[in-house]
């Protein structure tokens, strides 16, 4: 599969919570090796789309094909997911957390955890429990957890929230580097300007649908 072939195809995706439709027939193709910024107002369906792609929400209708597979479990070891909460145990250190999650992915290389912690700009020898980290450090450690299995596809929900500008810029730089290595990255964010020079495409969601896709953030902002 070439980088530019569609790695994710979503066809008429519907997700309902009771009577509320969070996704109302999303149809899209996303090419490999690109960084997509998913934008939209609160309640537009961004997080639901990401969670459904990550197999955490069951689609109420439609189809998702990721790396050619329709069942998430078949390709879950090739996907990294970072949520708004940290998905980390507060009582354990960053290294202990990652060592545990590495075992879930069958990663036997003990140095991998330290490698990804260093990649996000943290110190793997830090013994402090994650619960005592600043919000920014927690976000970066959460990103390290998502990178642990060296995924082909990264699904990141609000990775820059509560992160200072300098650290957020570092994270954007890291994500751009990962994209350049051929990874496909989806970033749900309200801080689109951070990704202005890094994202390949901005996807605007509205009322559970993709309303616009563009390479030019300025044009998207002027249209809103």
């Amino acid at each position, binding site marked *: 599969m070439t980088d530019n072939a569609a790695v994710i195809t979503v066809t008429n995706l519907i997700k309902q919570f009771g009577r509320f439709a969070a996704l109302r027939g999303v149809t899209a193709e996303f090419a490999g090796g690109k960084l997509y910024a998913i934008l939209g107002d609160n309640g537009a369906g961004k997080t639901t789309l990401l969670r459904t792609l990550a197999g955490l929400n069951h689609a109420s209708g439609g189809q998702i094909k990721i790396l050619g597979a329709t069942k998430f479990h078949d390709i879950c070891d090739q996907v990294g*997911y970072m949520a708004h909460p940290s998905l980390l145990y*507060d009582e354990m250190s960053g290294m202990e957390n990652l060592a545990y999650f590495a075992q879930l992915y069958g990663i036997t290389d003990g140095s991998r955890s330290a490698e990804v912690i260093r990649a996000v700009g943290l110190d793997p020898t830090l013994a402090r429990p994650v619960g005592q980290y600043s919000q920014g450090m927690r976000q970066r450690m959460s990103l390290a957890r998502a990178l642990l299995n060296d995924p082909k596809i990264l699904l990141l929900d609000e990775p820059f929230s509560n992160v200072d500008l300098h650290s957020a810029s570092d994270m954007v730089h890291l994500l751009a580097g990962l994209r350049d290595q051929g990874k496909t990255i989806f970033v749900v964010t309200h801080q689109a300007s951070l990704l202005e020079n890094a994202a390949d495409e901005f996807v605007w969601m509205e009322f559970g649908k993709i309303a616009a896709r563009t390479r030019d953030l300025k044009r998207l902002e002027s249209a809103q």
Partner: protein
Amino acid sequence: MSAAPPGITRATLLKDLRLEWRSKDAINSMLFFSLLVVVVFSFSFDPSAEESRQIAGGLIWVAFLFATVVALNQTWARELRNQVLDAYRVSPALPNSLFVAKALGNFVFVSMLEALMTPLFIAFYRLRSLGPTWQLVLVAVLGTWALVVNGTFFAAMSIRTRSREIMLPLLLFPISIPAILSMVQSTTSILNGEGARFWIVLLVSYDLVFTTSCLLLFETVLNAE
């Protein structure tokens, strides 16, 4: 049903033991509750040795049952904090590895409680078993597993409900009645030097049926929205 790989089960079990060692959430609550039961009942009754043997089975298992519920609520609560359970769900690790690790973890916690509380029960109620002690140990192991295997399953079912502390006993207690009956009757019989074969066989059967059922259904419970 897929078998639980021992590596992931062991990693999850060790992680849970480490978290409990650091927080002591479950153990402290269980110990306090059981201690309360022992002390309150010992002040309420002043039984003879014979009467103690008649009531001890019920008393001990009721105390352990309620204490187990406290531990079970803690088990999944720590997976909900920061939505860590989602990190497990997106990984290739099998749901049953998580279930077996959680059930084993709870078994360790409740067994520790039993080991600490049994001498107190013996002292406060002046208990002396007329039957073989190894049978009491066997009933303790089988009974504890019956409580934790169902408890772990139903606690997982109730984690997404709003009033999970109430929901868990509501789900767990009715389905545990055959096990509790077997545990109480076999303990009382052994303490009185009577045969408990029927109740022990019933307990073994209960454990087998419910362990299998929980393993078969856990994936559905874990991925329910």
